[in-house]
């Protein structure tokens, strides 16, 4: 296959199972697909939106500071305005008074955008599920990409959720796959 070991790409391709990287005979030249590069850049530099509502917000803050460092994943740019963000991490309970605000902020984000629902309250209402004022899950208002259970989820759990999101973003394609014609047998 002509893969040399100078760049170690053989081992890397094997380990990461990225089928899109190929290398010519000479080193320093790599071909891949545009989809792969764009998605790779998108997933490694997500700008999260500081939408911490309740206790989970403190774990989100902790994950941004020194011990659990979210900058390792390229996500340290927490922006308070939705216009500059890709990712809305809903951390905390959403109630009926807050729901229109959540929807409005989600609408103000530009595509492509993703939502992580962090914690039990955002996933399904949590310990307050039978409150008269609590929305049982933020997915009743906005579409959610990754759910992170926990009350509150540890920063490591948040990171696992972020890595799952990175995998999900990696699968994005600019051109949607062409529908296959039906088999005529």
């Amino acid at each position, binding site marked *: 296959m002509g893969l040399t070991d100078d760049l170690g790409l053989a081992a890397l391709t094997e380990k990461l199972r990225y089928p899109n990287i190929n290398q010519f005979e000479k080193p320093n030249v790599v071909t891949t697909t545009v989809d792969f590069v764009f998605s790779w850049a998108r997933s490694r530099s997500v700008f999260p939106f*500081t*939408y*911490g*509502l*309740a*206790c989970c*917000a*403190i*774990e989100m*803050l*902790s994950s941004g*500071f*020194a*011990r659990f460092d979210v900058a390792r994943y390229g996500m340290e740019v927490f922006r*308070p305005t939705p216009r500059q963000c890709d990712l809305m991490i809903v951390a*905390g*309970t959403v*109630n009926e*008074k*807050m*729901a*229109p*605000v959540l*929807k*409005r*902020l989600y*609408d*103000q984000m530009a595509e492509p955008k993703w939502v992580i629902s962090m914690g039990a309250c955002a996933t399904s209402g949590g*310990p*307050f599920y*039978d*409150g*008269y*004022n*609590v929305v049982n899950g933020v997915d009743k208002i906005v579409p959610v990409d990754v759910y992170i259970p926990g*009350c*509150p989820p*540890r920063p490591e759990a948040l990171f696992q959720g972020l890595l799952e999101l990175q995998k999900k973003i990696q699968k994005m394609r600019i051109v949607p796959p062409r529908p296959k014609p039906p088999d005529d047998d």
Partner: protein
Amino acid sequence: MPSRFETEAPDAAMQLALDRVRASEEAGRGSDMQGLGFNQVVVNMGPQHPSTHGVLRLVVTLDGELVKDVIPVIGYLHRCKEKLAEKRTYYQYIPIVDRTEYLASMNCEWGYVMTVEKLAGIQPTRRAEFIRVIMAELMRIASHQVALGTFTADLAPLGTALVFYMFRDREKILDLLEEASGARMMFNYFRFGGVRYDLPDGWVEKCRELMARMPRLIDEYESLVKDNAVFLQRCIGKGVITQQDVADYGITGPNARASGVPLDLRRTRPYSVYPELDFDVRLGEHGDVYDRYQVRMDEMRESVRIVGQCLDMLPAGPVQAGTLRAPYVIAPPPGECYIGQENPRGEYGTYIVSDGSRYPYRLKYRDPCFCNLQIFPKLLRGNKIADAVAISGSMDMVLGGIDR
């Protein structure tokens, strides 16, 4: 639900602000002495805002940069806790009390557990009392670290770097609390008659070691900001709470002590083993933002002293008074009780009415931040909007307690 291309009609709070603007203009107060018209703009700060520390919405009436009026709107985190109390047994409710003031969970649990023990006539064991004091004081240090860290982080966006040091050391305290109770934030550790788990082996030594290092770390925090001329200029003299305000608005905790009122429930209404411990109540002089910051720094030092004493005085013995066994049901006799305890933010307590069944009949929180927030309009009037951020940070709001 409004679609994205519609502007909403103003809701009740915005309408109130707009009505007040119109009323002041009609009454002739819409311009200054030279006849220059004020341009009063009603602006929404929140509920999603980096500086309001939670989902607090401030409907601010601004004239340029000057704040004319503030209407705080709360309820964006109202989780129906008082109604949930009537559907959960006393034991099942302990994790929910944790989530009231989520930065000071141990203290909140204590406020609830103390009241139920009084109603049911349970006396906690002596070792458990000391462990409770240790946990509460460690939580006080952690809570002040977050409070001061986010306060200085708001003054300049993460500019003072104090918040990084504070959160780094908060992780050390949370490590200790996690070893003892199993969780980093919502501990579910206190039980009626004691605490859930005894301290693991080696915990006391680790805690002693951390408390030996802590005074130097607190000195490090202070040294980062205390000579910063911008910090001092933004904090000294702003947002003064007078002693009359403390009584009028029910302000307790470090906010009251910064104004010179020695209201500390660990001394004025002693509970648990606090009478046997030796610590000072730190007071401020002027009641401004800087004093509130300084009182919290000093309180961290006092908490370190208290923890050191408790570790020395820790007796052997059981950590539960024999009430924790299946089916985990407790049914206090009919009656009502309120006991307040000293939270890092003020006086926190639950007023519980019991009707003899295993569900509380009525549970009402006395939350310090709810009372502290009422003084906001008075404090912020006449200040610039940047001072509003400094003042609100110094008052240390946790919306979980305000909205319950």
